[in-house]
């Protein structure tokens, strides 16, 4: 774990940090990686990964129209909308 890795993780996660917080984060992430490195000592040769505790397959609902959502109700909590559209800074000049 080094500053370069931290930069990459911050960029992938769309996060930024103040300089002081970066130092602490580097220390914390290094110790967390130390903790999870314990997993290396476990023999997992030939063990199938477990993604879901009950091992059931994801169900699909019937392909039929269901209740529609009320656009106005759901957009009432949006930070910025106009005419039913979400507003973001200009993307295309």
């Amino acid at each position, binding site marked *: 774990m080094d500053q370069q890795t931290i930069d990459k993780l911050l960029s992938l996660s769309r996060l*930024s940090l103040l300089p002081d917080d970066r130092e602490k984060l580097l220390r914390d992430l290094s110790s967390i990686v130390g903790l999870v490195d314990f997993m290396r000592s476990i023999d997992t040769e030939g063990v199938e990964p477990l993604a879901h505790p009950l091992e059931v397959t994801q169900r699909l609902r019937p392909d039929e129209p269901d209740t529609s959502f009320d656009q106005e109700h759901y957009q009432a909590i949006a930070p910025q909308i106009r005419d039913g559209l979400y507003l973001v*800074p200009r993307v295309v000049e």
Partner: protein
Amino acid sequence: MNPYANVTQLRSGLDNGDFSAEELSHFYLDRIDAEEDLNCFITVDAEGVLEAAKRADKAIADKRIGPLTGIPIAHKDIFCTRGLLTSCASRMLNNFVAPYDATVVERLKRAGAITIGKTNMDEFAMGSSNETSFYGPVKNPWDRECVPGGSSGGSAAAVAAGLAAACTGSDTGGSIRQPASFCGVTGLKPTYGRVSRYGMIAFASSLDQGGPLARSASDAGTLLNAMEGYDPNDSTSAIADATDIFSSSRALKIGIPSQYWNDLSPSLTKVLEEARRALESLGHRAVSVELPHTNAATAVYYVIAGAEASTNLSRYDGIRYGHRTASPENLEDLYQFSRSEGFGSEVKRRILTGTYALSVGYYDAYYLKAQQIRRLIRQDFLDAFGEVDVILTPVSPSTAFKREALIEDPISMYQQDIYTTPASLAGLPALSLPCGVSDQMPVGMQFIGPHFGESSLLTLGREYQSETDWHALHPADNHD
């Protein structure tokens, strides 16, 4: 009115006309007000609960009585409540008024429960001490210098302090069980899939499970009965045959795993041993079992929960709802500044850990490896349940610790979850219930059962609580 009355007592008080739902709501509202210092609540819905109480009183008069009609409960602020702030204790959702009710909220309403407010918690349920909340820490009613545990700390403390009859919580790696233990209340993490996750803000989707925090195993069962069941709105909701909440008592074989007992402090060992003997005197038999991969659970949990959290929390982009930074220059700034301002440091740490575990070059060594060990941990339990009915363990390596004791040291904080994460990884039900005190602070024990085996846990819990009084102790006893 008795603030520590259980649901059964409240039910008969309401039905016999000893008090009305409106009087009961006023009573709890006054207590919440008087105990503001505990910081259990993010939102108190005085107007809403009193209106609902009037409707409940009418229903009781008309003999249209559900199991929880007129009983005030509080929801952890992770459950969406239509028209009420649902903040997940984060600045990110400080302005989020949920447009719909979570299935858990809707079902408890249908059973007659009335919502008195939303309880404080660790931000996005990430924490074991309730110190990561944007709204400040919750204090433990047994000792106000101590944490109530986390992440459902507000719910546990509210039940312990007699501010609500019961509360909902959510448990990803111990977030119902550990605060229940720290505050001397009874908390149940159901089998993964038994309670719908629809409208419960996602942290780690293969682990998250809603459940009750209550005064007794009996009350926890009443709440589970109202909350549970298949929900087409949650694609991981289990279609299981209806299973009973309680079963008839029978002599059980109780597994004692050395991996959970060997490193326990002498004072906790003494309390847990006493609990084991009490269970034996009820006619149950304790036998040794082995769960050999237990010591890998914390590492596995933090990889899997982090990976799932980093994915789930990518939805917070400052566009559709939640916190949005002021005057971003471009779209990248909008994402980055909204997220950086909206999330607290523990949430960021977990997102970054998860992103690391999922990134190119590390995926096999961390995420895939963790999923493989997750299977081994689950298999350990399945093997053990071939021999025993229930497994008895401690809930936490300590009683409630002082605020700020661990917050700067994530590893020590994460190790608080050592006894609760294994059942979470295996998707098993687990009940946390009070079994003694150590230095005047409550100690909890944990019953872990096989998938959909809640009835064994709740029945055993009810039986234990009919013979012992630990669940009936409350913080006021500490000042006597």
